[in-house]
C-alpha cells in the first residue's frame, strides 16, 4: 500500500497546471518523510480517539 501511495505521490507531472505550480519552486517531496508524517498523524489521531 505504501509503495502504491509513494508511486502515486511521486508520479511524474501530468498537467500544465502542476508543471506551472512547481516550476521555479524548490519543493522536492521526500517520500519517506511524507510517509512517516502521515503515519505519525494517523497514530496521534488514533490514540486521541481511542484512549478514553
Amino acid at each position, binding site marked *: 500500500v505504501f509503495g502504491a501511495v509513494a508511486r502515486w505521490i511521486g508520479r511524474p507531472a501530468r498537467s500544465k497546471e502542476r508543471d506551472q505550480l512547481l516550476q521555479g519552486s*524548490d*519543493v*522536492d*517531496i*521526500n517520500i519517506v*518523510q*511524507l510517509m*512517516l*508524517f502521515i*503515519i*505519525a*498523524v494517523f*497514530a*496521534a*489521531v488514533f*490514540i*486521541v480517539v481511542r*484512549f*478514553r
Partner: protein
Amino acid sequence: MALAHRASLLVGDVGEEAMGAWQVDGRRARRLFFLPFIGAFCLVVLWAIHQPAYMLIAREDSILEWLQFSCFLIASIVGFQVGRRLLKRGELPLGLFFLAFGLAFLFVAGEEITWGQRILGLETPADIAARNVQDEINIHNLSGIRALFQAGMILLALYGAIAPWVARARSDDPRLDSLRPLIPPLFLTASFLVAFAGMFLYTVIAPLVDQSIGDITILKFSEYWEACLAAAIAAHVLLTRRVIDMGRGSTVNQRSGLGAGPQ
C-alpha cells in the same frame, strides 16, 4: 537494606496512586515507571552492538523524532479538549492554561518537524540559515532563542519529575487542590527524570567535555530523552482528559485519592 525498603515503598506508591487517582492498573503503572530506564538500557546495548540499527531508530528524522511529533500532536489536541472541558465547568484559569498548553504544543510539534521543511525538501533561506544553529526553518534553533527553549524544556522535565512527589508528600495541603490537573501521575516521573537527566547532560555537561564522554557522542542519544519527555506529556494530558470524562466530580476533588496511602 533501608534504601531498598524505601525504594520498594516508593514503587508501591506509584502503583497505589495510579489505581486511586488515575484508574490505571497498579502493575501496569509500575511497569510504565521502569520503562524509560529499560528503554535507555536497550538503546545503549543496541548502540554498542550494532550502531547502524541504533541510528535507524535514533537519528534525526527517524522513528524517535516522529514519535515525538506524534506525542506533541496528541498533547496539543488533547490539551485543547481538556481546556474546553474545564472552561465548561467554570474552571477559568485552568481552562485557559490548557488552551494555551494546546497552542504551545502545536507550535512545538511544528517546530519538531521544522514545519515540514524536510518533507518538502525546502532549502533554508540564507538569512535564516545564518542565524539558525541547525540551518533549518524553525524558531527554536535560532541563536538566542535556542537557549531559552532548552531552558524551558529542562524546567518542564524537572517539574514533571519532582512535582508529583512533592504533591504526594503534601497531599493534605489545600493550596495544592486547585493545581491537581497540572500534576502528572507518579508513574510518569521516571520519564520526566530521564528527560531531565538527558537534557542536563546535553546542555550543561556536553559543552564541558567537548560533546562526548569517551567515544560516546552525547548528541547521538538526544532523541531518546526528548521522546521520553514528549511521551510523558502526552500521557499526562490523555489521563487528565480521561479522569475528567469519567465524571467523578470536579477534577480537583476526584484526585483526593492522591496521598491516601501510606507515606
